[in-house]
């Protein structure tokens, strides 16, 4: 099987020849740029600075030579603009606060305060208020909530929270034409992030890509909407879905079935031990809108739909299936109720688990290589039979993860595949 066939078989619940592996195909299955550099060293690849493909979580691009070395099955085509609203183009060197030389977009504009904290600007516009902040001792940016001083929670205006949703620009269309030409004929599966289909992804609510966001932009304010303004959310998501459908049609006209997997949604519905809303709320507010998006995809394309949600979401898995999602990520087995065997037994023939391979909160950063190996083998034995599993860690591989543990993880999947 080619990697593309392997991924498609796994998603369609057929036994692939080998367990497929993804690292780096999306912004929730990626690797921190500091770890990418160490992986390149480990595999003795050309010494060159890692490209920061996602500047918010500081994810490093897993380039073709590293995909080959790690024997990975998925090639991403990243969005035309980053979360900070600028295109990744005309790479320039940048020294991170932890002293790593990386490559960033020419529009990656930062300032530093006298305490060594780094600030980044929307669309590379340093005349706008900074929209991201990386503390001196951190390895990631976090969004800065810029609350409109005129915001009134009693006078919500739908248009304020629709500013970033609109028809695909000519510039973006040209980008997709160029990118699809580049990857047509690839034997790897192709994954893309859809734009505007998340319906309330909390990382995007503060709109770190806008210079002057209006409306509900505070994280707590946003979460409160589902409790006391569900009708506002429903109207907002109806409008967002409407726009997304038009843009998906454009993307399909350009890329066609080159694309195998579309990341529809990074919206988290779970915490470590509970949900962010009740099952009835999810079914009332989100399900009909996600279903509309997923139904359009299934009726018009050969794409498979990928849903990310961290946390203890076992009570929602049936709802995700009813929404039309084909794939669930990151399968946080460490969260309450997310027992691997229970997930496989109860849902494994109806949704594909893309993730769940190893705990990135405990085992991978703090365990021994042998503990990593044991956990990875156990997860593969539970999830892999019959397809319905793509190996990935539970969310991105974080900074400060010992490289020997990352290598143990990858080697163990190859061992499981009989390839060691």
């Amino acid at each position: 099987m080619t990697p593309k066939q392997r991924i498609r078989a796994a998603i369609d619940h057929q036994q692939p020849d080998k367990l497929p592996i993804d690292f780096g195909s999306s912004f929730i299955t990626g690797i921190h740029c500091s770890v990418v550099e160490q992986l390149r060293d480990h595999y003795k690849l050309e010494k060159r600075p890692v490209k920061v493909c996602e500047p918010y979580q500081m994810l490093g691009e897993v380039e073709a030579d590293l995909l080959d070395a790690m024997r990975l099955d998925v090639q991403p085509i990243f969005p035309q603009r980053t979360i900070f609203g600028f295109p990744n183009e005309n790479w320039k060197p940048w020294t991170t606060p932890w002293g790593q030389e990386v490559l960033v977009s020419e529009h990656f504009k930062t300032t530093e305060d006298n305490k060594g904290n780094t600030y980044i600007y929307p669309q590379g516009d340093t005349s706008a208020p900074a929209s991201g902040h990386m503390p001196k001792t951190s390895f990631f940016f976090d969004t800065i909530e810029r609350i409109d001083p005129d915001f009134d929670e009693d006078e919500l205006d739908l248009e304020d929270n629709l500013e970033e949703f609109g028809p695909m620009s000519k510039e973006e269309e040209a980008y997709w034409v160029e990118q699809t030409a580049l990857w047509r004929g690839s034997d790897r599966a192709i994954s893309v992030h859809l734009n505007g289909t998340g319906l309330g992804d909390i990382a995007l609510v503060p709109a770190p890509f806008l210079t002057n966001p209006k409306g509900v932009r505070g994280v707590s304010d946003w979460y409160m909407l589902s409790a006391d303004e569900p009708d506002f959310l429903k109207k907002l998501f109806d409008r967002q879905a409407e726009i997304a459908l038009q843009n998906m049609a454009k993307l399909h006209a350009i890329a066609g079935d080159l694309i195998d997997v579309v990341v529809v949604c990074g919206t988290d519905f779970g915490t470590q031990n509970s949900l962010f809303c009740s099952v009835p709320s999810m079914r009332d507010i989100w399900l009909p809108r996600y279903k509309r998006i997923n139904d359009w995809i299934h009726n018009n394309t050969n794409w498979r739909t990928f849903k990310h949600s961290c946390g203890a979401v076992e009570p929602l898995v049936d709802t995700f299936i009813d929404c039309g999602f084909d794939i669930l990520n990151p399968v946080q087995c460490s969260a309450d109720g997310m027992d691997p065997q229970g997930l496989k037994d109860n849902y494994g023939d109806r949704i594909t688990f893309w993730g769940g391979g190893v705990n990135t909160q405990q085992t991978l950063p703090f365990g021994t290589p042998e503990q990593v190996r044991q956990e990875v083998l156990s997860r593969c034995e539970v999830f892999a039979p019959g397809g319905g599993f793509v190996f990935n860690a539970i969310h991105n591989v974080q900074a400060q993860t010992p490289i020997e543990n990352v290598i143990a993880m990858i080697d163990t999947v190859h061992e499981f595949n009989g390839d060691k």
Partner: protein
Amino acid sequence: MTDSLERLTTAIKTGKRKDAKAATAESLDAGLSPQSVLDALTAGMNDVGKRFKANEIFVPEVLVAARAMQKSMDLLEPILVASGIQPKHTILIGTVEGDLHDIGKNLVMMMLKGANFKVIDLGVNVAAETFSQAITEHKPNIVALSALLTTTMPAMENIVQHLNQSGADIKIMVGGAPITQDFAERIGADGFSPDAASAVELAQQLCA
């Protein structure tokens, strides 16, 4: 309990901020004791905490309840201060150095306020030295530390060690997504709680 106090408790439970404000104003205007108004408010938040812990309600419902509580407190707090009614216990809280995540910390803070703790919020990205200075200034009973990132768990460990070595007469409680009971014990914290409602119970135990 009088009608206006019952309405205050109900308004907190259901997160109706305007009702909470109106019921508070009515209760105070009617000359009810500030302590009785505070008790009604605390009863509402106590119910919210129990239902949150039982997974009957979720983060959004807790947030709207806390917002309603705050609307009530805006009216009540100056009167409590003027009457000399003060919370028995003080807690310093902050997200550890290098970490900017505060949803969990803020939930804990709201629930603690709802249980009538005095809460001093040091914000996010807080260094050990800042905690030490605040301990000297505020003389808290408890210091509560939060971390979301695996990369800031070492900072939490450093802060706990720093505070334990300082000899301050405090208890330390920790929480956050990657934090576990084992980790809390290993770094020398006095307690760990997995959610905001449990944090209140833990704080009450540590102050007993």
